[in-house]
């Protein structure tokens, strides 16, 4: 067990004590409903603004409203990848299992966000430009990000030894993090080279204040949702990986 013993005087919260799966498990259980609540709250307000408050766009009519899902999903997929890489790095540096488990818990939601971004991008593109898919720089980068998430998940799934899977995934995530800006830059370059700038989703209509608010609120909604789901998933991962240890065997939910 890699529990770091710090000489805590007891007055300060010993953060490292939470790096033990046993201590984090109940904490995660207590936090989860809180984040679900926030997510629903932000979601309701955000959707209300998106659909009823934000004005219809002069050019695109009401169809553009899918932007309130598309853009937050894109942002979240990026944020989740950064968070995943951060947790993976922490797990590698401090050799803490829980950090690696957090990274593992975040990956599927990140992949979902990337996929959602692509899906909603297609629904936006079809009525606007008549094509389900356009090789726009942002969409293409999003596609590559989806591949990076899937690669991370596939690598972890293929390695039997959980510790090796943690560390290998961490290295992949860190290599990915360095590459994401490079990939984005190269795809933007490629896009300006081969296509006219006519088809571009980043050229959004001049944003009314309300539109921005709608997007921000929806982003917060997705963020809280991600955290809630990650906490739930990490608890499942903890149970699975620590199933042999004593504290798991004495858990109420398992003693049914």
């Amino acid at each position: 067990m890699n529990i770091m013993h710090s000489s805590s005087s007891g007055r300060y919260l010993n953060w490292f004590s939470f790096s033990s799966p046993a201590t984090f498990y109940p904490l995660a259980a207590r936090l989860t409903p809180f984040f679900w609540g926030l997510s629903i709250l932000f979601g309701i307000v955000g959707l209300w603004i998106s659909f009823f408050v934000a004005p219809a766009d002069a050019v695109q009519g009401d169809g553009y409203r899918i932007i309130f899902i598309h853009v937050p999903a894109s942002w979240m997929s990026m944020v989740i990848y950064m968070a995943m890489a951060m947790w993976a790095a922490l797990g590698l540096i401090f050799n803490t299992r829980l950090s690696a488990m957090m990274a593992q818990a975040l990956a599927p939601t990140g992949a979902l966000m990337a996929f959602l971004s692509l899906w909603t991008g297609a629904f936006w593109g079809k009525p606007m430009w008549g094509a389900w898919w356009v090789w726009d720089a942002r969409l293409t980068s999003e596609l590559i990000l989806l591949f990076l998430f899937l690669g991370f998940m596939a690598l972890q799934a293929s390695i039997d030894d959980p510790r090796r899977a943690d560390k290998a995934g961490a290295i992949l995530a860190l290599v990915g993090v360095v590459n994401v800006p490079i990939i984005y830059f190269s795809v933007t370059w490629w896009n300006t080279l081969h296509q006219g700038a006519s088809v571009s989703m980043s050229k959004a209509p001049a944003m009314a204040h309300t539109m921005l608010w709608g997007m921000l609120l929806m982003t917060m909604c997705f963020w809280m949702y991600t955290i809630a789901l990650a906490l739930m998933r990490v608890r499942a991962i903890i149970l699975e990986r620590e199933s042999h240890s004593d504290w798991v065997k004495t858990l109420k939910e398992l003693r049914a």
Partner: protein
Amino acid sequence: MNAFFAIIHREVLLVLRRKSEALTVLFFFLIVTSLFPLGIGADVALLRKIAPGVIWVAALLSTILGLQRLFASDYADGTLEQMALSPTPFVLLVGGKITAHWLLCGLPLVFLAPFIGIQFDLDLETLRTLILALLLGTPILSLIGAIGAALTLGVRGGGVLLSLLVLPLYIPVLIFGAGAVFATSAGLDVGGHFSLLAALLVLAIAFAPWATTAALRIAIE
């Protein structure tokens, strides 16, 4: 430094003893590039346009084929462990292996490419750009690919998994490399493309050997 050249020497010796493995990679490159005209049609103007992309994608796929063998045999017969326990820094030996991979897998592609280019009716200027771009790009492919090969060492479904991990990371090299060739054929300046390729190469040399070594240590554990 002696050890660095010794390991390159060893890799070359091993390939010379078993030539078929290295040659299959080159044949793959030739076959894949031939598939495109067969699938698309022999319209010369069209072929000239798709040539940079086709040749580069074929180069990527061929490199990945060759990557699977990079560490696998050393891992299987225990020599990788010995390298990790050598007084010579492991990262130096890993760098040597990657260099050897490029010499045996990447460099031949650079030599073959002009012939493929002629099949696709590229002019002399474009062919020259193609060779130079591949010369800069193939080492990057070996370096980045080595990380993937190390991560998937001894893992089930290794070959396909390797492709899934490495191909997204290859995309910048593909874009700048093929872009350079395309630019020359369109009469545009390629300075920017080559600078970016060179920058990627420097970045790859700076980071990839260490990431690969870390991944190998994890695999050996």
